[in-house]
């Protein structure tokens, strides 16, 4: 409706953050949060490709029962690399490090993040960890699964120590990013940008940063102890020496459950932006959505025991953790209903970012509801360690986070690069990914309910047809992502010039030129209204 241009329009061919400095060195030494966001984008998308190839290999092997292309040992390695790469190198850094880095300062009207040098350091630390992780591929590999459970991870004769060090290093990078974002939100908001005028994406990134700060150090010490265990046999996790392997699970999930929200909260933030922008309507329940992000972050620290319902945890602990886990459903549902209420009587248009946001609502609802089924102890005893769990967390992590990442990339692409992509092809990527995703993972719910255990190399013939369907779905997803790569590359090479605010959105980043100048705004913005003041 209102393709409004709030500030004075800018002349074309002007100086922006991309063309102001030239040469490779200017990129690798840049302290500009926008350029660092792009460095993250290139590296994370590359790791996503690698992790995705491992995923396709897993599905290819499981196309039929019995050995197809891999040995059982190779299968365990492929499964481990798929999980470890996707978690530590794609989904955890994904939205915060790419879109957060780029748009956090822009959305609050700052010139940069609080500590630009630290920001660049985070990227180098991340890359160091990633390179160590990739090196394990050539130096012994690893077959523990991404969770590194003891006692197997102490015994296995693979490069587990090195992988653990890699995860530790990438965790440090995550901590530094989170620290940077918290201080930025507190200290660098533009005049008039009160805490209740910041966009909901910022609330989500802020809650994520709090989790990164509070949870990641515990993972750090857990992984260090595991490395010590493997090197010196300190005995803390080793039952032969009086230690307790379940303690490792407690420590690990004390980080890794909040980490699940490190992965999903930023996605929820992106979806809030998309739904408001493409409904052209003030978001329903701004305060409720903002506080539900904080609420999810707070509750997430008290639910880790639901990963251990069958690990010999006491029944009382099990019941308490089950109850607390269901509590997460409350703030999550608050978000869902607020998004739906925003859509209600909105002036909705179905551009590709919006399609991904609606896809998110659909898939995340399924992921969330099956989460409640897993939080119920009686049903979890049956579903635990089956494909039901695999389907559940893929609906949340892929159906949720990756859909939002794709939607966010398409939404902000014109701002980041000043160019438009082919909208028809972009919508086609959504169709391929959305259909492919459901074809891949919905059968896995049924397989899990039938009792097919996760992480196994082989299965009985009764599971074959559903597994074959699932594998075919994985090819559709692969085609969808390849097509989006094509869409992005062609848009970068020959896309039409984008206007400053192609969607008519109201948040601050759309009030500056596309792409923005090095210091983000031509005139320091003064904020007088909330982020979603649509008429």
């Amino acid at each position: 409706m209102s393709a409004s241009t709030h500030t004075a329009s800018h002349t074309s061919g002007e100086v922006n953050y991309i063309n102001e400095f030239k040469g490779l060195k200017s990129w690798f030494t840049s302290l500009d949060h926008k350029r660092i966001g792009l460095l993250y984008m290139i590296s994370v998308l590359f790791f996503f490709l690698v992790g995705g190839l491992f995923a396709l290999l897993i599905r290819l092997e499981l196309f039929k029962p019995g050995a197809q292309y891999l040995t059982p040992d190779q299968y365990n390695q492929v499964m481990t690399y798929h999980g470890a790469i996707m978690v530590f190198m794609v989904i955890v850094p994904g939205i915060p490090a790419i879109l957060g880095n780029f748009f956090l300062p822009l959305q609050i009207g700052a010139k940069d993040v609080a500590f630009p040098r630290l920001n660049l350091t985070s990227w180098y630390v991340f890359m160091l960890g990633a390179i160590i992780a990739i090196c394990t591929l050539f130096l012994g590999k690893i077959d523990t699964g991404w969770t590194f459970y003891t006692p197997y991870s102490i015994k296995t004769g693979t490069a587990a120590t090195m992988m653990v060090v890699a995860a530790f290093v990438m965790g440090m990078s995550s901590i530094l990013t989170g620290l940077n974002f918290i201080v930025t939100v507190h200290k660098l908001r533009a005049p008039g940008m009160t805490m209740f005028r910041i966009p909901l994406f910022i609330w989500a990134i802020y809650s994520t940063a709090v989790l990164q700060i509070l949870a990641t150090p515990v993972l750090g010490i857990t992984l260090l102890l595991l490395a010590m265990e493997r090197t010196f046999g300190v005995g803390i996790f080793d039952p032969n020496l009086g230690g307790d392997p379940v303690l490792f699970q407690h420590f690990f999930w004390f980080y890794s459950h909040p980490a699940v929200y490190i992965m999903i909260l930023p996605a929820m933030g992106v979806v809030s932006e998309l739904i408001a922008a493409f409904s052209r309507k003030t978001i329903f329940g701004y305060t409720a959505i903002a506080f539900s992000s904080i609420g999810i972050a707070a509750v997430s620290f008290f639910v880790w025991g639901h990963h251990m319902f069958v690990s010999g945890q006491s029944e009382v602990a099990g019941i308490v953790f089950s109850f607390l886990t269901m509590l997460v459903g409350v703030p999550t549902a608050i978000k869902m209903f607020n998004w739906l209420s925003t859509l209600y009587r909105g002036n909705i248009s179905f551009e590709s970012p919006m399609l991904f946001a609606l896809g998110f609502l659909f898939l995340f609802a399924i992921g969330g509801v099956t989460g409640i089924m897993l939080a119920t102890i009686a049903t979890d005893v049956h579903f635990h360690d089956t494909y039901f769990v695999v389907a559940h967390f893929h609906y949340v992590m892929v159906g949720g986070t990756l859909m939002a990442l794709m939607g966010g990339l398409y939404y902000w692409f014109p701002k980041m690069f000043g160019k438009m992509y082919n909208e028809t092809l972009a919508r086609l990527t959504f169709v391929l990914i959305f259909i492919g995703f459901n074809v891949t993972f919905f059968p896995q719910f049924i397989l899990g309910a039938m009792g097919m255990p996760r992480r196994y190399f082989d299965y009985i013939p009764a599971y074959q047809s559903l597994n074959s369907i699932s594998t075919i779905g994985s090819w559709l997803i692969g085609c969808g992502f390849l097509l989006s790569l094509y869409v992005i590359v062609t848009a970068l090479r020959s896309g039409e010039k984008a206007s400053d605010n192609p969607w008519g959105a109201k948040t601050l980043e759309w009030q500056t030129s596309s792409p923005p100048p090095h210091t983000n705004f031509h005139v320091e913005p003064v904020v007088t209204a909330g982020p979603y003041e649509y008429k």
Partner: protein
Amino acid sequence: MSTSSSHTHDSHVAHHFRDANHQFESAKQGIWLFMVTEILMFGGLFVGYAIFHALYPKMFAEGASHLNWKLGFVNTLVLIFSSYTMAMSIHHLQKNEKSQAVTKLWLTVGCGVIFMCIKAFEYTGKFQHGFLPGRLLDVVHTGAESANLGMYYGFYYCMTGLHGLHVLIGMGLIVWLALRAQKGEFGEDYFTPVEGVGIFWHIVDLIWIFLFPLLYLVG
């Protein structure tokens, strides 16, 4: 003089901050957040300690009885004194008393050296007598009575080792501060790095104050 000092202060303010104070407050908040992560990281070790101490109180008492609490006590005093010299260096910088500030910084480094020397002395003694972590513990040589005494030393080496690593990093940072202070880079207008490293050093000191009774005096 005033122009030159205002020049140094301006050159330290990055373009995205309003003024020197805005930058100082932001840096300080960042450092405190980083300290939260440090405390949580050590927190994992403290929780592990609490769990296994509750399970095997005798084993922890036996392990502690082989440590020399007098050396640990001296080290506690050394670190507390170093926190005092660190705080005093900032006090002097705020009054533009450069040479006193530099002296206090070098004194802090000196305390770190004493601490690490005593720690190295303790470690070598333990190594020679076979008090090694976990499965490496020499049961015959040490005359260990409790089963799994090695776990106590697992905790001992992990906790003091990680702490010692922090002391070393802190010393390196304070040497860097002392050299910069010598060149007159800090004064009442700008002492953010000294403040930040100071907070780090105090937290490292504080962690030792918990480690000392838990490892040396337990049982």
